[in-house]
């Protein structure tokens, strides 16, 4: 019998791996991939709640909005990364410190 907790456990693992990816990588595109993993784990939580608790279909609608936000975020972030590459010829986030005082 699959319980709510099992889905939440998988989402917790996905979240922690995504966070590790964000914290350790220096490549801007790889950091974005970590963020996508985190958003996916949040979505999995929302849909699991919508199946097993009283929230009914609202959880799925919310997850749909999260997917739309993730697509928008990826488009803008990649535009920023391309711009960054044009200006400093690198997408290493450590080398982008022009605004440091």
């Amino acid at each position, binding site marked *: 019998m*699959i319980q709510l*907790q099992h889905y939440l456990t998988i989402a917790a693992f*996905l979240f922690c*791996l995504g966070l590790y990816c964000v914290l350790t990588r220096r490549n801007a595109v790889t950091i974005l*991939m970590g963020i996508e993993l985190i958003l*996916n784990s949040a*979505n*999995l939580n929302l849909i699991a709640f919508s199946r097993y608790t009283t929230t009914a279909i609202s959880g799925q609608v919310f997850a749909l909005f999260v997917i739309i936000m993730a697509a928008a975020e990826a488009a803008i972030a990649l535009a920023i990364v391309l711009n960054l590459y044009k200006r400093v010829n690198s997408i290493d986030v450590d080398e982008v410190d022009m605004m440091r005082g």
Partner: protein
Amino acid sequence: MSEEIRLGVFLAFGVLSVAAAAVVAFARKIIHSIFALLFAFFGVAGLYALLHADFLAASQVMIYVGGILVLLLFGVMLTQKISSVDLKGPSFQRGPAAAICLVLLGALLFVIYKTPWPIVDRPPIHPTPPAIGTHLMTDFLLPFEVISILLFAVLVAAAMMARSEARR
């Protein structure tokens, strides 16, 4: 579907997505990370389908695999020499990051298994697209309109930012 088959499918998709996410987090080559991300998204889409969220499973495959992943691949191909081996691996803050993630994972698992969730036993909503559409047009009408404005703004902004700077 019988309970054993459900459990097997759940384990298959769960292990697939977590293992692929681990490859995303630990792979040394960025191209390996991207292709592992493909499997992670597919695994999560399978879990959505197992939760009777058929519309969202289809959206996940279309938007994440068809859209975001291709966008990320373009991002890598436009900014790195894809064949070069000396892409920087994760050699940065690994110890503290691992400690933070493990502590957080422990805390999350503790909360997940200690909280008395308000679980109700009800049949799944079977065709979800009509239910989602009704909700979007009634209870979630304002977010729906706001997100359409957001998507338009993103479209314009992404085109503005990514274009060549010939006009400067």
